[in-house]
């Protein structure tokens, strides 16, 4: 048994370290273009004159900018990418660096996915130096937060809507509906809870959001699901805090402060597209800020802070009210691009054309000659690249209005390798059951997932009813971490490592009882229901690239026997939908009735009791006869005492 547990733990450790590695890797992939530009570039210039077959051959090298064009274009690239090579080299460099990019992916369903990423790097140390006071590109408000609260890593996201995995595939950066905040603190922090409380209040002010509603009743310390994405190998999860606010509604007032963190604001560069009237006319909107420390070079001698601001949004083909099936930057954002942010070292626009190699799905104009490939979420994708730092990109009209014209119809629903759903079963207001379904659609590989569930205390989980079944059989989780809730103090935390068999549905069920709250604890709209935040499922999913073991024709045989690591599996985090649960709710117009009724009851009860207590009782004499009464009258007249 002990041995079993031991192996379990070591397995877990391996998984997590792997996951961290892969996550870091994935996040790096896209910008890596620019980073390793220096190295790749030499090779590229050497092969400048290479013809088409050579280019085709090099297609499989995952992350590089490729050119299939004339010498002029190549020279242009060289010119523009020269400043990008500075990061790892020894050439004198600015201490901070800003990059911006926009990825547009025409989705399977006919919708358009637009993902903005803005990255600011700064090789300063907020912790070591006493005071960092000179800020250039890095926003001062966040820098002060990092140094004041000794933050090692901070991830905050605001999302309006639910990412539809079945229709849209996986997002580049997942986030749950509402607000999510998770922070790793430095080891130097003594009172983590107090710092966390203060931090949430400060962030609440910075982002104009209700993060101040984060308190001990919705904060948890996940033991395994959230590992640092940046530098540092911390395992003590007492420095981690995780909280979600599924009810948080994201709107313009959150977007404005987010845009203010950008060096160019919304004045220039890609950020001019971020107009709230169009952004909030979409099917999905998510904005996030990620702060972490990263290595500057491969030996990791020096570190720098990375601020990554992301904004994802999906535009709906149907409710844009257009008859022609076409998209353009102007239609999506009501703006076109005219320049890059002058402070940015790189400013690029990527269009995912993987599903469209011969232009049979959609037509792209203006066309571009630049192509790039990257392995994103286990899938090798091809992108058209528009470099905004180049004058030629904007053409003669001096503005870039990208146009995508759909040719094919909407596709059917996707079968993502991993997806999940959650719902509340049962009826009535006493008990219920939370069902979490996890689908592994991989045809032959099973893989483990980490499930994190944080349930508010007012749903009292009957943990003995926890059951995990796949394919009709009991599926015993290899790791369970459960922290029971405490009424009005802390939520339930349930983390499990579950192996999902290939091509199966795994169902996790747990019953709960609905608590009766005190009447002051109800929100102003109690009949709306109470939210339970999304479950988080983190996993290393075997990639689809590795699935095609037969398609090795482009690769030499000796290279393809073992699936190479970064392609064999990739890290995915998915969020289920939040739940809306009705609790037994008193009729709040009732107090008046209750007061009336109570008063009546008290009056009746008290009145009769008082009556009984104060009245003197005496035995009633029997009625005297008529003769006696007459005699008494006569006696009274005579002045003699009556009989």
């Amino acid at each position: 048994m002990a041995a079993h547990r031991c192996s379990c733990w070591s397995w877990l450790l391996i998984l997590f370290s792997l996951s961290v590695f892969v996550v870091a890797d994935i996040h790096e992939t896209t910008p890596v273009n620019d980073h390793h530009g220096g190295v790749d570039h030499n090779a590229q210039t050497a092969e400048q004159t290479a013809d088409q077959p050579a280019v085709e051959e090099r297609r499989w090298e995952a992350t590089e900018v490729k050119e299939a064009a004339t010498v002029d274009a190549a020279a242009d690239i060289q010119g523009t990418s020269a400043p990008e090579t500075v990061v790892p080299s020894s050439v004198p460099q600015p201490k901070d660096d800003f990059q911006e990019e926009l990825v547009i992916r025409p989705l399977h369903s006919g919708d358009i996915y637009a993902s903005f990423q803005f990255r600011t790097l700064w090789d300063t140390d907020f912790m070591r130096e006493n005071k960092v006071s000179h800020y250039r590109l890095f926003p001062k408000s966040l820098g002060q937060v990092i140094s004041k609260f000794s933050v090692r890593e901070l991830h905050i996201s605001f999302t309006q809507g639910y990412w539809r995995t079945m229709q849209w595939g996986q997002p580049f950066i997942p986030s749950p509906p509402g607000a999510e905040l998770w922070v790793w603190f430095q080891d130097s922090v003594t009172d983590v809870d107090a710092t966390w409380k203060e931090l949430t209040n400060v962030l609440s002010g910075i982002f104009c959001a209700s993060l101040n509603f984060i308190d001990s009743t919705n904060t948890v310390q996940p033991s395994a699901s959230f590992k640092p994405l940046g530098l540092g190998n911390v395992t003590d999860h007492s420095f981690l805090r995780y909280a979600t606010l599924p009810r948080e509604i994201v709107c313009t007032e959150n977007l404005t402060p987010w845009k203010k963190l950008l060096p160019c604001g919304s004045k220039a560069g890609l950020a001019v597209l971020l107009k709230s009237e169009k952004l909030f006319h979409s099917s999905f909107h998510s904005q996030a800020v990620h702060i972490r420390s990263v290595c500057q070079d491969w030996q990791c001698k020096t570190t720098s802070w990375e601020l990554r601001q992301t904004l994802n949004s999906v535009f709906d083909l149907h409710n844009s009210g257009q008859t022609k099936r076409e998209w353009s930057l102007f239609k999506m954002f009501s703006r076109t691009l005219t320049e890059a942010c002058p402070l940015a070292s790189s400013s690029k626009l990527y269009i995912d054309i993987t599903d469209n190699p011969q232009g049979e799905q959609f037509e792209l104009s203006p066309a571009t000659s630049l192509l790039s490939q990257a392995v994103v979420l286990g899938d090798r994708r091809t992108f058209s690249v528009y470099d905004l730092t180049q004058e030629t990109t904007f053409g003669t009209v001096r503005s870039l209005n990208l146009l995508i014209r759909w040719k094919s119809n909407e596709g059917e629903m996707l079968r993502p390798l991993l997806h999940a759903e959650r719902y509340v079963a049962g009826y009535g207001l006493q008990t219920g059951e939370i069902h979490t379904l996890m689908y592994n659609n991989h045809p032959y590989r099973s893989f483990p997932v980490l499930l994190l569930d944080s349930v508010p205390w007012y749903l009292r989980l009957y943990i003995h009813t926890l059951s995990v079944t796949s394919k009709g059989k009991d599926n015993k989780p290899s790791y369970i971490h459960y922290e029971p809730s405490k009424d009005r103090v802390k939520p339930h935390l349930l983390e499990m490592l579950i192996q999902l068999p290939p091509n199966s549905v795994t169902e996790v069920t747990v019953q709960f009882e609905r608590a009766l709250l005190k009447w002051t604890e109800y929100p102003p709209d109690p009949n709306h229901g109470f939210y339970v935040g999304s479950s988080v499922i983190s996993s290393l999913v075997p990639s689809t690239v590795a699935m095609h073991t037969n398609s090795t024709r482009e690769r030499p045989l000796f290279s393809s026997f073992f699936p190479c690591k970064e392609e064999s599996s990739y890290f995915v985090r998915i969020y289920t939908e939040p739940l809306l649960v009705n609790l037994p709710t008193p009729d709040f117009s009732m107090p008046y009735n209750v007061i009336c009724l109570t008063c009546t009851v008290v009056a009746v009860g008290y009145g009769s009791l008082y009556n009984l207590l104060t009245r003197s009782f005496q035995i009633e004499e029997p009625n005297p006869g008529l003769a006696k009464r007459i005699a008494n009258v006569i006696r009274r007249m005579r002045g003699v005492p009556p009989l």
Partner: protein
Amino acid sequence: MGLLSDPNRRRALISMLTRLNAPICVVCYFAGVAWFMGLAFEPFTLRTYMSENAMGSTMVEERFPAGERALATGREFAAHKKKVGGMPVDWLVKNMQDRGLEVFTQSFSRTLPFPDENKERYIVKGTNVYGILRAPRAPRTEALVLSAPCSPGDNNNQAVGLLLGLAQYFRNQIYWAKDIIFLVNEHDLIGMQAWLEGYHHTNTTGMSWSPLQGRGGSIQAALSLELSSDVITSLDLVLEGLNGQLPNLDLANLFYAFCQKIGVLCTIQGKLQRNDWDSVSGYNHAVQTMMLMVMKQASGRPWGDHGLFLRYHIEAATIKGVNSFRQYKTDATTIGRLLEGMYRKLNNLLERLHQSYFFYLMPSLSHFVSIGYYMPAFGLLAVILLLRQSSPGVLSVLTPLVISHLTGVALYALPIRFQETAVEHFPVSETEAVVLTAIAIYTAGLALPHNTHRLLSGEGTEQGWRVLKLVAVLYLAVLLGCTALINFSLGFILALTLVPLAAFVTPHVPKVLSAFILVILSPACTLLFSVFFFQELQDMPVSFQDGWLLYLSVISQGILDHSLYGSLVYPLIALLVYPCWLLFWNILFWK
């Protein structure tokens, strides 16, 4: 207060109650009936009003344009339905997908406990198709449902057409805050039951269904649409659900408000509203409408596909298009606009519908009687039971109590168990076997208790029957009180018949006459009268022969409703009301 503490006055009160017991009871009974009949008189009722602020009156605009196209879709659906000979699943899936919905199917099957002769079905297999319109930027926590049944024959094709038309129109709008589920259910209530059980992952009735793949969170409200002609003259609102549950009154108000706004004739119980409340015929009309509601509610059956939603605390109603060849015509576009308006209002809801009444009766669509007004009518009847108790050892009544309840259990369990045996030995069908067994057990119960009682304890004592009556009367009072709280109509109808007999029965009244009255007022005969009365109310009187056949089918439907949808009326009658009635029968034959 003096009344309670002053022994003299208390004594006076008690002596008055004992002296005038019989007259007071009679007065109470007639006062109760009169109160009830007065409820339908318009000046005594309240006007309906919208309680929910989020559904204020003028905030949405209806623009649905595509009524004709919806009807064309309906005709196409009809053609495919005919071709496939049932639910055209593939066609529906494709059509919903083309309209930009996420489409899922659910298959289900159910073997009925005995063949249903009314709808000619025994082993039911079917498929539900539903499409979810995902609201933009909503996290799948709330949903609304619009359903249309896929009925056999030429019924409800237009409803499905309109449903698809609305789906297409709704899909292009940006303002949805709740997911909208468009459901086409096969085999009407059985399909609906399967879908709801699948959605909430419960299994109350032993149906087998395939699990649902897509959900939209907690369902806030649902409408079921029944439409069988291209042009309709009026829309009828059906509210009565399973076990007499009603949706929140605001849903009815919403429907009424939009009918007024758009100018569609609307009815409830198929009765138009009349303005001449002060005339006799106007009052009769209102009474008729209210009595129809009472009868329907008392039956505990779901009177439309919406009826099963109510168990899950989802406010739901059925909207039926009626084509009765009146002058006034409404086309599909108008109905579409009406539904659009209602859904936009429901979409605006911040909380579940909870502001308005859940317990009410409606003498017309614009007036309602709330629980505070109708309960006194029942209270006046129930107080008779309390007045008729005569005080006096309890053990002696145990035998009749146990025996009458055992008879009740037999009545509940045996009919379905013994259908096969009955079919083997008698020339009857399964349904007839079940119903006739039920009637046989019911009648046999009349002979059982007093015989056994005589066998066990010899001659009954005076004390004995008094105790039995005390127990029986209290039992009935509690039983009727609880029933009336949940389902007023059922409680009231039972009180109307059972209370008089409970009041007068003693072993000293003339045997034959009383026995006759007792049988006339027994639950089974009440049901028989109700059947005739209901037909009368609907202006469709039947002959005795037809009425009897209808009566038999009503019993079989009651038993089926219990096993299919979990309706509680049959077990209530068999396990509680009938044994209680047997106790009174027992008292009559005590000596």
